[in-house]
């Protein structure tokens, strides 16, 4: 190799190194750059008026929830099916499994499947929020600002939800659900979802005051195939039916007074089934 070739080689090496460094550096810079949610403008608020009217309080069709336990059971894997059959028998015998007696959130998708309490929808620019009645910590943030689903969202009870509008239907994808939470079909029948759950929902009006949530649940660790169901809600507009605060743990306490006359909460005892212990 001549000295000319050696010089050319060194120069090329340096050039490639600089280019590579530049690419890496700009890439790293891009990754570190925080994504800023832009401030909404007047048009964003005006556009909310083009969305369907989902105002009011929506209470669930509980009878249909119960009926679907018999008519539309999820395709459980064999191991989970054994547990479900055991729980169904126990519930029938008056010994319901205390799945939710610890007051942890029912979580997604069980909240959508089994809640006996009302929900409401809030539209704001780039987001739909669902608030629940049965526990003040029950809410879902559904981002409709066009963002992609994160690659690896932090697992939470209600998951990470991204939505978009297809006409008057809100299509929502939810992932990032904690694997310990139950996939339940009633308050006493359900199993831990064991992770990798994905939920696709299509919220739409099925009548003037009827809401349907068409749900597809992909839970590969507990189901043999995706499961589809629909949950129905009834709209109430009377002010007396508005959602009221419902703190689950509130029921664990009764009102009392301390020695100084202050109003206080005192814990009360429950049986393992979740009922207050009757007077002896």
């Amino acid at each position, binding site marked *: 190799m001549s000295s000319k070739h050696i010089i050319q080689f060194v120069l090329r090496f340096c050039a490639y190194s600089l280019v590579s460094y530049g690419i890496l550096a700009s890439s790293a810079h891009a990754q570190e750059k925080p994504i800023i949610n832009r401030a909404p403008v007047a048009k964003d608020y005006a556009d909310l008026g083009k969305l369907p009217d989902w105002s009011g309080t929506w*209470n669930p*069709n*509980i*009878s249909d929830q119960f009926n679907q336990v018999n008519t539309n059971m999820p395709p459980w894997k064999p191991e989970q099916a*054994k*547990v479900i059959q*055991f*729980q169904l028998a126990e*519930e029938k*015998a*008056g010994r*319901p*499994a*205390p*799945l*939710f*007696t*610890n*007051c942890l959130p*029912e979580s997604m998708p069980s909240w959508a499947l089994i809640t*006996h*309490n009302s929900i409401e929808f809030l539209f704001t620019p780039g987001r739909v929020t669902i608030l629940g*009645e*049965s526990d003040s910590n029950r809410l879902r943030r559904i981002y409709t600002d066009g963002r992609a689903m994160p690659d690896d969202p932090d697992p939470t009870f209600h998951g990470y939800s991204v939505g978009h509008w297809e006409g008057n239907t809100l299509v929502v994808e939810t992932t990032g659900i904690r694997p310990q939470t139950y996939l339940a079909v009633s*308050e006493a029948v*359900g*199993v*831990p979802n064991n992770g990798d759950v994905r939920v696709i929902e299509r919220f739409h009006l099925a009548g*003037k*005051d009827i809401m349907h949530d068409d749900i597809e649940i992909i839970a590969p660790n507990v189901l043999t195939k995706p499961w589809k169901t629909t949950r129905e809600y*009834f*709209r*109430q507009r*009377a002010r*007396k*039916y508005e*959602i*009221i605060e*419902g703190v*689950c*743990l*509130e*029921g*664990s*306490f009764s*009102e009392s007074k301390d020695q100084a006359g202050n109003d206080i909460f005192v*814990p*009360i*005892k*429950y*049986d*393992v*089934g*979740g*009922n*207050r*212990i*009757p*007077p*002896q």
Partner: protein
Amino acid sequence: MTLAATVFRLNNPFFLNHEMNPMKTITNLFKLALFIAIGVVPFAVNAHHSTTMFDRTQVVTITGVVKEVQWTNPHVAIFVSGAVKEGDEPSLWLMEMTSPGNLIRVGGWSRTAVKAGDKVVVEFFPLRNGGKGGALKKITETQTGKVYTADIFAQENANLEQSK
């Protein structure tokens, strides 16, 4: 195993199915019995439960006086001092119901609809275990004749105010 861990396992539906070791099962059942017997029920254990512990094939009626109303989520409770048969010595009964929000929708309830001191007739589905409690079906205030029901399915229509 700690008590907390035992409670967790009792709440885990896999507890009875994955514990295939008979000795472990017996041990855990013993812990369950001990757990109940000593009455150490952590106050975090409550709420959001199925209601099949009540026998819905039976309806019991008591006549008495309301002693206390606990208007709380997720289950409202009413304590009634009453007797099943006229002339019997009254005793204290515990009536469980659904949440305040549901009661308002199903039966016109409010926080003050039923108050301590009210004379009432209560129909309820009794606890299967024979305890002095049940799921309230209907309560009638004898002095005013007002009736409140607690059927959770009675709210399954839109615009309920038009049908109540």
